[in-house]
């Protein structure tokens, strides 16, 4: 005769197997495509900020190291990042609710953690580059 704890363990192991076996990812591919689109739009804005003369009275474009330019570039980058995150989360939660699954499951948590590490490393690297004025290299990364 099995004890109550055995029945509990049966149910636990069932639930555990179900979660472990499914590789459902709530993140949708469309959000990745849109993130790229935002990045290209941002690049277009960045180009105009750096390369196009700001007023009809400029006879040359401004140096990329000036602080106003840097602030504008940072705002563009931040806008792209925020737009991408909002789109990503929005599409993921719509897909998850349509399928009746949580957005935040083991798979998506693993994805975010595994992506954050190289993302942060790359971001810090780029900030260092910007700091030391290596804007040419920055442009290639963009």
């Amino acid at each position, binding site marked *: 005769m099995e004890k*109550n704890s055995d*029945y509990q363990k*049966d149910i636990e192991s*069932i639930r555990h*197997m179900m979660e472990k*076996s499914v590789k459902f990812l709530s993140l949708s591919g469309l959000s990745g495509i849109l993130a790229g689109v935002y990045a290209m739009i941002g690049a277009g804005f960045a180009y105009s900020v750096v390369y196009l003369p700001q007023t009809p009275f400029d006879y040359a474009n401004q140096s990329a190291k000036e602080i106003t330019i840097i602030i504008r570039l940072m705002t563009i980058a931040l806008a792209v990042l925020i737009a991408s995150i909002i789109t990503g989360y929005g599409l993921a939660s719509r897909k998850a609710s349509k399928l009746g699954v949580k957005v935040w499951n083991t798979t998506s948590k693993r994805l975010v953690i595994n992506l954050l590490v190289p993302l942060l490393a790359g971001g810090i690297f780029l900030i260092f580059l910007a700091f030391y004025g290596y804007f040419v290299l920055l442009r290639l990364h963009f």
Partner: protein
Amino acid sequence: MEHRVRLQIISVLVVNDSYDFNALKELLDITDGNLATHLKALEREKYISISKSFVDRKPNTRYKVTERGRTAFKKHLDALEELIKQQRK
């Protein structure tokens, strides 16, 4: 379906379209022979279906749960729930 391993196999198959032998083995952490025995028993009861094919010239066996298996699984879960509730009283 009283065996815990058989319950686990069916629970994997109800939340996935299909699952292959090696993936099941890795997931459940049991030996080839052990898994094969349980799968054979489940197939005899017509709770699962087998489809064998070749992937990259290697044999690949995939399993799916049948409607009969799904119903039996659900009944089993209900029974377990009842038993737990009973014993709590």
